């Protein structure tokens, strides 16, 4: 049963497509996971990944070894922001973030968090509420288990920035989880 027989995305050069398949395709889940948390929408995430994979295939000749996961995730991220730039309401919000929120964490006791954090729905809502620059570092670190160095490469930032954003993201998550637990949860609606 041929899939996408004549004009499939991998259809033309068998050697290249085999290499692409063995190096890049294993990270399809990683690509989708990042796209999903950036886009916060299944259909948009699929569009982002589809476009990112096409770009990856187009640029594949310029990939000379190294970490294919980091390479692909950087493409996914860039693709997301390029597509998003056509609808720019989020960008301003995102740019302001670093200065606007100094490190503060005075919150309820750890016990409260222990109870709330176990709830996947609350975690999901809290993650979705983070501004994109914080959301991407936390997704890359906690869900994708990237090192700071890998996150720095994917997001094109300095390691120090990665560290402070991650600290900020976690404090914000903690605040979200402890201060507004009773909010409408999106996943219940889906």
């Amino acid at each position, binding site marked *: 049963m041929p899939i996408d027989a004549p004009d499939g995305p991998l259809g033309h050069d068998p050697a290249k497509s085999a290499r692409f398949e063995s190096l890049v395709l294993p990270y399809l889940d990683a690509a989708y996971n990042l796209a999903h948390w950036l886009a916060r929408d299944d259909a948009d995430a699929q569009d982002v990944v589809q476009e990112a994979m096409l770009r990856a295939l187009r640029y594949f000749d310029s990939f000379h070894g190294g970490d294919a996961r980091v390479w692909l995730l950087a493409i996914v991220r860039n693709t997301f922001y390029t597509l998003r730039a056509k609808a720019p309401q989020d960008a301003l919000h995102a740019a302001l973030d670093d200065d606007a929120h100094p490190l503060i964490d005075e919150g309820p006791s750890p016990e409260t968090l222990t109870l709330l954090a176990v709830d996947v729905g609350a975690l999901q809502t809290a993650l979705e509420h983070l501004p994109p620059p914080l959301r991407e570092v936390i997704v890359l*670190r906690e869900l994708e288990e990237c090192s700071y160095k890998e996150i720095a490469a994917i997001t094109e930032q300095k390691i120090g920035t990665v560290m402070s954003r991650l600290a900020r993201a*976690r404090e914000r998550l903690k605040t979200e989880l402890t201060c507004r637990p009773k909010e409408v949860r999106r996943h219940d609606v889906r």
Partner: protein
Amino acid sequence: MMCDDARLLLHAYLDDELDAANSAAVAQHMQDCTACTARYGTYATLHKALAQPALYRRAPEALRQRWTQARPAVAVKASPRRRRAPLALAMAAGFAGALLLTSPAWFHAWRQPALGDDQVVAEVISGHLRSLQEQHLMDVVSTDQHTVKPWFEGKLDFSPRVKDLASEGFPLVGGRLDAIDGHAVAALIFKRRLHVINLYQWPTEAAANTQVQTQRHGFTVIRWRADGMQYVAISDVNENDLKQFVLAFQNEASTPSTH
């Protein structure tokens, strides 16, 4: 160290990203500062909560299908071997016949690894892929080896080895029935952080051998035989992790079986 510095650094400490000096400084500070210790505890909880597999979004099947040529590729790889078979068979027939007459054991040993190895690897990969789809991973969900092992009873004509390797960083999460190479086989599912490791096993009459490692489509497959059983481990974790897993399973398995 002041709390202000520690507040930032304890995140890197949690992520194991600090050099030795800073790491020691943070640890020292936390010994003296209950507030920072409590903060650290909270973030450790959060860190753990975020590692729940439910938060990780895997690519939908339609998207994967569009980009996967796994099945056709396997077929293409297998077919030239088969096309060449009649010729090779003709040439080998006399030789094999002679071998058969002189030493049946030789013939068996020669035949066993050569036939269907590719096929087994291909089946193991598609079994692993199938298992990663929603609802396909486990028939019995348990981290307790004493629940998983009895579950197989009456479903298979052998008793699989079941070991929890949580202490080695590979927690057992469940079991499943599968079919490989025409056998009903036991599949044990282990986790390595977010990754899934499938370990297949079924009885074989072939002699024990050293392990064989194969890389395909980004998966690592390690096969070995021991105590009359064929084992195949597959995962997308890096090959060192999978080697470590195999080693851990072999160590664990050999201890209780020595009579």
